[in-house]
């Protein structure tokens, strides 16, 4: 990559310091979940950095985290991978819960709180 590469990071350089640190609430949730799980001893920070680094490296071969915007999507993928690897939950449980949340949204009248899926 050269300085004249059109995908230069300066294309999206925020020159101000006031940018929001999380673009969407789910990013903050995923971040905070990771910090909390580490604090509770579910994994070491080394293991986390290694897993996240591997997700990012894998993605670079495909589309690239060129602009940093899909960073938290990779973060989420890394977190799913690490907690299932650690046996804290399973991919099947996560898939089932995700479907259950979606169904509860669809079954809840607009404006009412969405109930948590039944365990």
């Amino acid at each position: 990559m050269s300085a004249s590469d059109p995908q230069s990071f300066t294309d999206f350089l925020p020159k101000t310091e006031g940018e929001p640190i999380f673009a969407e609430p789910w990013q903050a949730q995923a971040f905070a979940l990771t910090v909390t799980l580490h604090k509770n001893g579910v994994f070491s920070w080394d293991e986390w950095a290694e897993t996240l680094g591997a997700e990012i490296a894998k993605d670079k071969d495909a589309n690239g985290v060129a602009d940093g915007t899909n960073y938290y999507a990779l973060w989420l993928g890394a977190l799913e991978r690490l907690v299932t690897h650690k046996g804290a939950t399973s991919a099947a449980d996560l898939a089932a819960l995700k479907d259950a949340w979606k169904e509860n949204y669809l079954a809840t009248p607009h404006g009412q709180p969405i109930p948590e899926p039944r365990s």
Partner: protein
Amino acid sequence: MPHDSHDHDHTDPPSDLTLRVKALETALTRKGYVAPEAIDAVIDTFENKVGPRNGAKVVAKAWSDPDFKQRLLDDASAACAELGFAGQQGEQLKAVENTEDVHNMVVCTLCSCYPWPVLGLPPSWYKSHAYRSRSVIEPRAVLEEFGVSIHEEKEVRVWDSTAELRYLVLPARPDGTDGLSEDALADLVSRDSMIGTGVASAG
């Protein structure tokens, strides 16, 4: 489609990413690995309590207090903890000083390790592939793009962060700032100057 044409007997589900996070949080809460209140507390801390102003206070104190500066260069983790800025991941912090001969800049080539307690969360460009790969290959060209020209006789040192060791650049104190209070000095310290992609300036 205008919102009011929707049926009101359901709620549109959020994005796939949001549903995945909710699934994780629900699964891990039920197994007792996390408490939702703890997650909210972390979000509050990072959105409201930590950020580059912490690092700016550290830099301003180092500029004003030679003893503190020495402690910062000897053991940055301990020096920052004196001001109440302590790490949560057990990582070590190292301060690297810009001098007449050396300009320092920080990158994490692996992912995005960053000194959270003093700088908050990294800006999006810090996480980009371009910055992570180019900073080590052609740091001067990268600095030029940030508007920072480093004299060719000056050495540019690039520090690659890891999970265990993060870096804080101690920028050079701008000329003409004698007699300023620590608070006034802190206002001159930008986030980028503490990553090394900027310099502190008197205005």
